[in-house]
C-alpha cells in the first residue's frame, strides 16, 4: 500500500506538505493526552523522554550508531576482518601530508571563526542603524544560497592567474602590482581558501547575531542612552554582554564548520599545493584509496579535535544555567 502511495506524486506532495507536520503535532497532542491519564509523578518522569524521543531516535540512527561503528572500524585493518591496534593512527601521525592537513585545519579553526564572527557582528550592528538594512543583509547573505560547486566556479574566476580573466590579478594589474598565483602559492593559498569560507559563512553569523540583537529590549538600549552612554559604550557594556550567549553559539558553529571544512577545499584545490584539510584526507582515503580503516581513524581524530570546543561549551552552558 505504501508503495502505491509513494509512486503517486500527488499523494507524495500531500504527505510532504500536510502529512509530516500533522504527524508531528499529533504526536505531541497524543503524548500529552496519554500523560493526563497517569499519576502526576509518573507523567513528570516520563514526559521529558517522550518529548525528546523523536530527536533522540533520529540522532541515534543517523549519527550515534554510525559514529560508534566508525570508531570501531578505526581499529581494524583495511578489509575490516581483523584488529590492527593503533596502526591507522600511527599512519596518520607519521606522514607529512596528513600532518600538513592537520596544520591547515588549525589555521582554519583559528582564522575562520575570528573573521566570520567579527564581520558578522560588525555588519549586524551597523546595518541595524540604516533604512536599507534588508538590502545589505541580502547581499551579505547571498553566498549562503550558492552551492559549493557554483562557489568554486565563482572563486576560480576571482583567483585566476591570467589577469585577462582573473578578477584579483586584473585589479593588481591596474595598480601595476605583481601577478599572484593565489591558489598554488603556499601558505597564502590557505588564506585565500579561508576567505572563500568567510565570504560564504559571514551571512550565517550575521543572520543569527542580528536576530539576537533584535531580541534586546529597545527600552534597555534607550535607557542606557538616556543615562548618557555613547554608542560605543552602549555596544561595549550593554549589547556585547547580552549577545554573549548568541556569539558563543555562532562561534561554536563556525569552529565546527572550520573543523569539518571539506567542500571548499575539495572544489577549489582538492588539497593540492599544501592546502589539504582533515575531512578531505578522510574523503580521499574512503573513496579514492578504499582505506576504510584509515578513513575511520581520520574521522576519530577529527572528533577528538572537537573535545576542547565541547568542554568550553559545557562550562559556558553550566554558568548560564546557574544564572537562570
Amino acid at each position, binding site marked *: 500500500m505504501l*508503495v502505491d502511495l509513494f509512486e503517486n506524486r500527488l499523494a*507524495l*506532495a500531500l504527505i*510532504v*506538505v500536510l502529512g*509530516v507536520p500533522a504527524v*508531528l503535532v499529533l504526536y*505531541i497532542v497524543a503524548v500529552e493526552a496519554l500523560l*493526563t491519564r497517569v499519576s502526576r509523578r509518573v507523567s*513528570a518522569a516520563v514526559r*521529558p523522554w517522550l518529548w*525528546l524521543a523523536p*530527536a*533522540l531516535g533520529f*540522532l541515534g*540512527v*543517523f549519527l550515534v*550508531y*554510525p*559514529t560508534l561503528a566508525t570508531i570501531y572500524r578505526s581499529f581494524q585493518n583495511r578489509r575490516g576482518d581483523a584488529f590492527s591496534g593503533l596502526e591507522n593512527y600511527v599512519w596518520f601521525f607519521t606522514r607529512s601530508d596528513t600532518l600538513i592537513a592537520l596544520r591547515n585545519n588549525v589555521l582554519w579553526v583559528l582564522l575562520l571563526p575570528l573573521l566570520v564572527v567579527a564581520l558578522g557582528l560588525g*555588519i549586524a550592528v*551597523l546595518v541595524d542603524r540604516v533604512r536599507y538594512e*534588508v538590502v*545589505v543583509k*541580502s*547581499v551579505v547573505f547571498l553566498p549562503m544560497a*550558492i*552551492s559549493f560547486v*557554483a562557489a568554486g*566556479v*565563482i572563486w576560480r*574566476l576571482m583567483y585566476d592567474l591570467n589577469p*585577462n*580573466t*582573473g578578477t584579483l590579478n586584473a585589479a593588481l594589474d591596474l595598480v601595476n602590482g605583481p601577478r599572484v598565483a593565489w591558489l598554488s602559492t603556499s601558505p597564502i593559498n590557505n588564506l585565500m581558501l579561508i576567505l572563500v569560507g568567510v*565570504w560564504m559563512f559571514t551571512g550565517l553569523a550575521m*543572520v*543569527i547575531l542580528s*536576530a*539576537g540583537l*533584535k*531580541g*534586546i529590549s*529597545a527600552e534597555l538600549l534607550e535607557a542606557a542612552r538616556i543615562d548618557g552612554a555613547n*554608542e560605543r559604550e552602549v555596544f561595549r557594556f550593554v549589547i556585547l554582554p*547580552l549577545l554573549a*550567549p*548568541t556569539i558563543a553559539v555562532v562561534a*561554536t558553529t563556525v569552529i565546527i564548520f572550520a*573543523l*569539518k571544512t571539506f567542500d571548499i577545499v575539495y572544489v577549489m584545490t582538492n588539497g593540492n599545493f599544501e592546502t589539504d584539510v582533515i*575531512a578531505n584526507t578522510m574523503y580521499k582515503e574512503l573513496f579514492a584509496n578504499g582505506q576504510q580503516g584509515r578513513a*575511520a581513524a581520520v574521522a576519530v581524530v577529527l*572528533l577528538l579535535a*572537537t573535545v576542547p*570546543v*565541547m568542554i568550553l561549551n*559545557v562550562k559556558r552552558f553550566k554558568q548560564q*544555567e546557574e544564572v*537562570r
Partner: protein
Amino acid sequence: MTQAPIAVDLPTQEPAGGRRGKKRRPGSVLHVVLTIIMLMWAVPTLGLFVASFRTAEATNASGWWTAIIPPWEFTFGNYDYVLNRAGFWDSFVNSLFITIPATVLVVMVSAFAAYAFAWMHFPGRNAIFVVVVGLLVVPLQVTLIPVLALFRDASLGGYELNGTIMAVWLAHTGYGLPFAVYLLRNYVGGLPRSLFEAAEIDGAGHATIFFRLVLPMSVPVIASLVIFQFLWVWNDLLVALVYLGPVPANHPLSVTLANLTTNFGGNWQFVTAAAFVSMVVPILVFFALQRYFVRGITGGAVKG
C-alpha cells in the same frame, strides 16, 4: 485542547517606526563602510551572473567585467540549455519534496527537544545535551557507509527505503538536528521564567505552552533555522548522490546540475546559469522570512 487564558500579554509587534523612529541619523562614514561591505560581497556573485550570460569562448578570452561595457554581446543560450534539458523540472520538484519535509521535521523535532532540554527536569539532562552538541562535529562523511547499509536492510511495510526520496529527508533530518537543537535550546532557554510560571498557574498544559507560547516567541530564531536548513538540504550534493545514486528519477536539482558539468566535462558556462536557477528558491525563502527578523517580535523577552 483547552484554550487556557494566559495572564501574560503575548508580545506584539511594535508599531511601525517605534524603534526605528528613534534612530540617530547615521553618519556618512557608516554609509561608506556599508557600501564597501556590499561591494566586497557582491562582486564575486556579480562576476558569475555576468558570466552566465556569456558564451564559453568569451569567458575564456576576457574577464567578465569587460562584458559590462557596450557593445553587449549577451546570450540566453546557457539558460536556454539548462532549463530545457529533459528531467530538469522533475528534479526541481524532487528538490522541493526533499527539502520541505527535511526542514519541517528538523524544526519541529528540534523544538520539542529544545523545550524539554530547557524547561523540563530529568536525570542526565545536561549530559544528553552535551552529547547532542558533541554530535555537531561528526563529519557527515563518517556516517555514509553505515547508514547506507541500514537503508539497504530496512524496509517500511515492504517498501524499500534505499534510493527513495524519503530516505534522503530522513537522513537530512538526522544530520540537521544537532545544530537545530543547539540553536533552539539556547533561545528557548532564554525565554523568561515568569512566562512559564504564569502559564502554569493558569492551568496551561505543556502542549498549550509549547504551541501557544514557545513557538510564537521563537519565531525569529525559527526563521533563521528554516533558512539554514532549507539552504543546506537544497544545495546538498553528497547525501543525495550517495542515497539516491541508483534512481535517477528521484534526483534533486543539485545532482542533476552536477551531472550537467561532469557529462559535458568542462562546460562550466552551463554551471553559471544553473547556479542562478538553483539560487532562485533559496533566495525567495530568505526574502519571505526576512521580515520575521524584525525587532519586537519577542518584545525584548530574550536575555541574550
